[in-house]
């Protein structure tokens, strides 16, 4: 039976995960709708991966309720997993097999017949641009290629829901863009994506809606735009001062912007008009080494909500 469109694909209420005394996820609520690209944004250790593993039905729920496709992971784990595609944070590819064999044997785990497994493997190798490498051993692939192969592997069962745990962490910019491009195509085909990331650009590019997690809790949720509007300003003025001048800044910038954030390496001024703020700074006789006006981002949202940066 297909889940009706009005019902969420994933629904969590008071969802919690505990490892002994450590509370990894502390009673979070969220819903993911069919066809949506939904993100968990947060720093390392925020509880994103623990949440993903519960959704993937590989980690038992400690408290609260979780339903996926309207089913309970505790009793219907294998049935739910049959409809999921999972890109785990650490690659679990089989180093002893070839690129193509990795896909075929994975298809077999889903009871897909051999002939169909081979057909899908070839189709997916084309999709992730690895066709020329199909006979190569996995250990000879670059990090970006391994990631793309893992994405292909996650699609072998034509999943209703694709889970991606930090899909581009550790990749160089070009490799990241290749992965993003493929994920964007999947999104356009209507595949429901749930991903975790600590990159705000990744979240902004791929997510229709996201939750910001910090210290095992959800601290905000909405579309990237809503979050920026609510917790940041339209523009942000970034100033850099010579190191010895910094201590004297304490009150010198009061009133120049809606909010001032003094970081280790720069000062952020939150304002609706960056150029006007620059003028105001200069009129107070301050001479920053450099100044930059940019749009507010999810990074600013995170800083505002938690007082810390996303990537340390």
């Amino acid at each position, binding site marked *: *039976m*297909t889940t009706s469109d009005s019902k969420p694909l994933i629904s969590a209420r008071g969802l919690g995960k505990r*490892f002994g005394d450590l509370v990894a996820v502390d009673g979070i609520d969220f819903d993911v709708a069919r066809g949506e690209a939904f993100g968990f944004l947060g720093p390392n250790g925020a509880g994103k991966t623990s949440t993903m*593993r519960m959704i*993937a039905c*590989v*980690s*038992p729920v400690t408290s609260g309720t979780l339903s996926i496709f309207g089913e309970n992971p505790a009793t219907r*784990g*294998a*049935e739910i*997993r*049959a*409809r*999921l595609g*999972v890109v*785990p944070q*650490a690659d*679990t*590819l*089989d*180093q*002893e*097999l070839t690129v193509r*064999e990795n896909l075929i*044997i*994975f298809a*077999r*785990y*889903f*009871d897909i017949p051999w002939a169909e497994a081979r057909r899908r493997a070839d189709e997916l190798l084309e999709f992730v641009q690895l066709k020329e490498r199909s006979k190569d051993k996995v250990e000879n692939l670059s990090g970006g290629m391994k990631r793309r192969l893992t994405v292909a592997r996650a699609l072998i*069962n034509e999943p209703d829901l694709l889970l991606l745990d930090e899909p581009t962490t550790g990749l160089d910019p070009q490799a990241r863009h290749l992965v993003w491009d493929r994920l964007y195509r999947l999104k356009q085909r209507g595949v429901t994506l749930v991903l975790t990331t600590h990159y705000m650009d990744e979240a902004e590019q791929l997510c229709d809606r996201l939750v910001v997690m910090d210290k095992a809790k959800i601290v905000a949720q909405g579309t990237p735009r809503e979050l920026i509007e609510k917790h940041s300003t339209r523009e942000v003025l970034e100033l850099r001062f010579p190191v010895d001048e910094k201590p004297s800044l304490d009150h010198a910038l009061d009133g120049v912007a809606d909010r001032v954030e003094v970081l280790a390496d720069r000062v952020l001024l939150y304002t609706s008009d960056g150029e006007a703020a620059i003028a105001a700074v200069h009129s107070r006789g301050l001479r920053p080494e450099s100044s930059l006006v940019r749009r507010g981002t999810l990074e600013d949202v995170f800083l505002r909500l938690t007082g810390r940066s996303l990537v340390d």
Partner: protein
Amino acid sequence: MAVTALSPVSGAARVVEHNALVFKRLWRGSMTVSFFTPLFFLASMGLGLGSLVNRSSGGVGGVPYIDFLAPGLLAATTMQTAAFECTYPILAKILWDRIYDAMLATPLKVRDVVIGEVAWVTFRMFLVASIFWIVMAIFGVARTPESLLAIPAATLCGLAFATPLIAFTATQKNDSAMGAVFRLVITPLFLFGGAFFPITRLPLLLQGIAWATPLSHGVALTRGLVLGTVGMPEAALHVVVLLLFVIVGIVIAFPILRQRLVK
């Protein structure tokens, strides 16, 4: 679309398929080793050393030394195969290559992993034992149709080591204890467990220890079947002891692996 989970049999079969696909690359080398190792052992120890044994004491227990040695060595060989298959490769799949994590993200369950691995190692040992039997036939040790029963008997002996070893491996955080398993368990049993000389030659205490391990039962059973000297009740006793090790191993391995992999 109704999605059903895999049945236990087809789930385990998928795990076997994975191992078979990996083995496809290695089988020639593996079979060559499985043939030449017993060939060399039986030529050197069975014929070479055996000629001295036969001259000085008329063989062992009334049979030429090679007839005594070969079936015992068969049981000891499947034990070694079990030890190789159930230590490093299993730990690699848990820890280094995380093959089990990949499997458990699919409809496969821990149950399928355990049954599949046990089925696979059974197949591997059956293969090793079959090749060993051919070598025994070449040397004229295996002469009767009943001696073919030594193949499943030796496989069972290996299995009695395999399942407890899987359980042990599943408790390990790294491979540092693996060497100790070989040095302190597998090698001493190989040398003193009854393959090369009767365990009645051991001090009484060591005899007791030997009978508490699966190998002595496996050796006695395999030897008895090849030489045609084992009676039904005695054979049944050995089979029951070996089966107990197999079952206890599985019963322990399952929850340990489950706790390890499903966190």
